């Protein structure tokens, strides 16, 4: 194997054979080490969350990757190529300038106009002190009702947009709620306080990836339609389409439904 070991010969064949072997072994080794190293680098440079989100987004059903401008009726059909991150969308301005059409109703759900909404069903509200409050939006709150437990990040922790902001537990389901923006957690709330996190972003954040105005109700309409199909319960669902009101604590009310799938779609798993 090595010079000095019994059986090693400085012959042409021997050297070629072992040289090839070591070259191959080294290639395999370097490849794996490179993969590990690049992974570590991704975490160090805080790219990891974005990459994870991109990968998961790519794995989502096409119907769930619908562009906000399609929801708002500005464009006929468009699948988002940017993982719902309009901040890096080159065509955002072009579409945003078009007139939107959307239902006038918010389906009996509470979506205040002063807030911005993330596709993972969180809302963001700018505060006067430069911090942002983050909470679970009304549709998600109606689904989950009162969570069995909530796991919030510690104040001082950093959260990344589209990364996990906090996790909810409800029965046998665990939900990862995606963070709508980047920032440092300043204060934590909870389900009963109406908001979950207060974060301070670095500098002035770009929030154009969040939904607002007419887009919100259009998005809601699509989400309710999806839920109706996924939960597939003939007794509860039609009321939604008929303009009925989404009942509070739907998970408790319909324990037999396919919540695994519904929650995954709702919270962009």
């Amino acid at each position: 194997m090595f010079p000095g070991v019994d059986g090693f010969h400085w012959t042409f064949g021997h050297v070629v054979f072992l040289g090839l072997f070591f070259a191959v072994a080294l290639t395999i080794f370097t490849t794996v080490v490179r993969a590990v190293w690049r992974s570590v680098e991704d975490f160090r440079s805080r790219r990891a969350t974005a990459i994870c989100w991109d990968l998961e987004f790519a794995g989502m059903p096409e119907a769930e990757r619908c562009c906000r401008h399609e929801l708002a009726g500005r464009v006929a059909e468009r699948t988002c190529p940017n993982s719902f991150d309009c901040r890096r969308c080159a065509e955002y301005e072009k579409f945003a300038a078009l007139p939107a059409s959307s239902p006038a109703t918010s389906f009996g759900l509470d979506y205040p106009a002063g807030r911005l909404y993330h596709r993972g069903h969180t809302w963001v509200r700018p505060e006067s002190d430069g911090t942002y409050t983050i909470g679970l939006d009304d549709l998600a709150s109606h689904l989950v009702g009162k969570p069995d437990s909530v796991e919030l990040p510690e104040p001082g922790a950093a959260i990344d947009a589209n990364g996990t902001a906090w996790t909810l537990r409800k029965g046998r389901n665990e939900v990862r709620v995606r963070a709508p923006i980047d920032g440092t957690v300043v204060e934590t709330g909870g389900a009963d306080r109406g908001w979950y996190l207060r974060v301070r972003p670095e500098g002035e954040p770009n929030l154009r990836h969040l939904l607002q105005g007419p887009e919100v109700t259009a998005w809601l309409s699509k989400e309710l339609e999806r839920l109706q199909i996924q939960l597939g319960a003939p007794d509860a669902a039609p009321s939604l389409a008929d303009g009925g009101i989404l009942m509070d604590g739907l998970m408790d009310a319909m324990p037999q439904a396919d919540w695994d799938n519904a929650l995954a779609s709702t919270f962009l798993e």
Partner: protein
Amino acid sequence: MASYAVADRRWIERGVERTSTLRFALWLVPWALLLALGVYAAGLCLRFGLNQTNMDNRFPFGLWIFLDLSIIALGAGAFFTGFLVYILKFKELKAVLNTAVVVGFICYSGAVGILMIDVGQPLRAWFTFWHPNTHSMLTEVTFCITCYLVVLLFEYIPVLLRNRQLRRVPSFLIFEHRLHLLVPVLAAVGTLLSFFHQGSLGGLYGVLRGRPFAFREGIAIWPSTFFLFILSAIAAGPSFLLLITSLVEKVTGRKLVEFSVLCRLGRISGLLTAVYVAAKAVDTLAWLNRTSPSLGFAPWEFYSYKPFGTWLMLAEIVLFGLVPAVLLLHPKTASRRGWLISAALLVCGGILLNRFILTVQTLALPTLAFDEFVSYLPSWQEVASFGAVVAYGVIVYSLSYRYLPLFPQEKREGYRVSGR
């Protein structure tokens, strides 16, 4: 739904359907029992030695070597598909790439596992690395298979980490992503390694000057069997993949890949089988007329011990070579599922027959004038140990199929599985 079923469902890819947890568990039970029996038998061999087998001094290689050679040849689909997809850019075959990796990993790890029982002193396996005899085909096989098993492991890991729950761990997902980007490098290395060890497995017999039935002349240090084994392995690999995919489709009752992918596999297999048959025929003629007589052995003598007659040679070349090659290349038969599967079965059967003839007939034949034609029947321990490898393969594949995105083309309306 019972709570275990809910928990189980959460590990299964979204958008695909799998059988119920209970039915899946029941499916695994017999295989687990077979595995347990085989592990017990292998334990007997390790504890009490190879006297538990029916091998002997005249028949030092037996069932295990024959099946090792066979499953390594059938597992060639893994490297060859990787080669076709990443190096030759056959994008269509991406549909079966993941399943090829899993099958390859099972075949190679199973073969290495059996080899570890087959040698008399398994703890000395590292001696081959420390004091390698670079003239030995077995050294090359050992080095290449070890390296290739590592390659397969790192090709399998990204598939594994794509599991729905494992993917949720950010570091797993990132590592999967980074490793996946480098997989073409591994595919290239795997191709190099596979070419050499598939060949060297053939060389194993081709260099046996003392066994004129197996001995072959060749190019430089490589006897002709070196090249024939490479050819036959890459011919059978796609066929085996075709069979496995069809079998899984049949067992699960789901459509997993487009039929055109299977046709593509069949065509590749057919083309290579045709080349193999031609090369094998030339090689056989050269051996009959030149190699064997030059060593003092009349080749027809080898076929005078029933039932190992010349029909075996003809069956290998015509029935298991020429016939499936024609079936796979003729547009009419190649586009019918039934013919495609039958032809693939023949190609894989031909590989088994070839490895059987080279292992068993070679050893059974006499060399000295006063030798007997010897026979050998494997003991239950040998059969059970190998059964364990089959059971291990079925279990690993079943688990992989259930919990990993093996078939990117398997979809329910609107869903796309994230296998790449």
